[in-house]
């Protein structure tokens, strides 16, 4: 052990560690963060269906509750079913375009940061 020289004596441990991490990320980076790509087409289709239906269900439930509370049946129900459908489409769009589930557009920023490192 003692007769073997370290590769670069001026190098401190942190620099070597970060270099090792970078090379590892280069190797595994592609497979590490690919929750969307890894899935099969039918899996993604299932997720989109569930996403769409659940948003409409939540919109309907909110409309129902508000209608019962404010005694405005059926108007708020109609409005919130439509809003729920829009929210469902928004969710599906986010899922399909790879933004993940993040409200707003945070996911793409993170990926940009990763590319810089």
């Amino acid at each position, binding site marked *: 052990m003692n007769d073997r020289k370290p590769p670069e004596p001026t190098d401190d441990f942190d620099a070597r560690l970060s270099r090792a991490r970078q090379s590892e990320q280069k190797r595994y980076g592609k497979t590490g963060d690919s929750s969307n790509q890894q899935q099969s087409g039918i899996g993604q289709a299932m997720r989109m269906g569930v996403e769409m239906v659940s948003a409409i269900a939540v919109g309907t439930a909110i409309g129902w509750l508000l209608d019962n509370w404010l005694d405005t049946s059926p108007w708020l129900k109609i409005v919130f079913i439509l809003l729920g459908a829009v*929210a469902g489409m928004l969710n599906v769009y986010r899922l399909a375009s790879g933004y993940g589930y993040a*409200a707003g557009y945070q996911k793409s920023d993170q990926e940009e940061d990763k590319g810089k490192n």
Partner: protein
Amino acid sequence: MADAHSPITQFVIKPLIPLKVGGWDISFTNSAAFMTISIVAITLLMVLSMRGHALVPNRFQSIAEMSYMFIANLVRDTVGPEGRPYFPFVFSLFMFILFGNLLGMIPYSFTFTSHIIVTFAFAGFIFIGVTLIGIFKHKLHFLSFFLPPGVPVWMAPLLIPIEIISYLSRPVSLSVRLFANMMAGHLLLKVFAGFVIPLGLLGIMPLAFLVALTGLEIVIAFLQAFIFTILTCLYISDAIHLH
């Protein structure tokens, strides 16, 4: 006879130890029994397999180490270094759901993840927890969740309800996905199993299909536990980082 072999009989909850406290039925059911079994199995796997501390792991130790590394990498990739405090929760969640799904693959057992109330309890707990984390970390900035930056002000009255519905639909879609996958798979297995004996010699065809389907179900058991976990990580990441 027909009733006992109905495809949905497997989902019936039977009280094993009837128990009533103040009008509440809190019997120890077969669902609770399988939850207990899965917790005991996870604990045994983790504690017993890591007792050796071998440098070169044996089979069980490498299962424990692999599952640890898998979830640790998942948390690091999706949440980042700030996600370390949530690792124990995410790991327990993943193992519990995975064991629930896999124990359900044993014949005559019960799949507790095939009941929506169970998965909704997971998802609701995660949803409330993640919302509280977001509120504590960012105080009122948390509300910017519901209005993405760069949106014109006149769009706000329309966009905020949509974002709130989108946010509220998370626990619903999270729980429905796991529950629907597990229930549909087990239903399908049982329906095809019902064809094998009545078809006589031709029953070999549904039987062959069943073998393939069982393999698929085991894959789905892993996949759904993984998806549930990765979505939990994404929600935690959202609450921590906001935008």
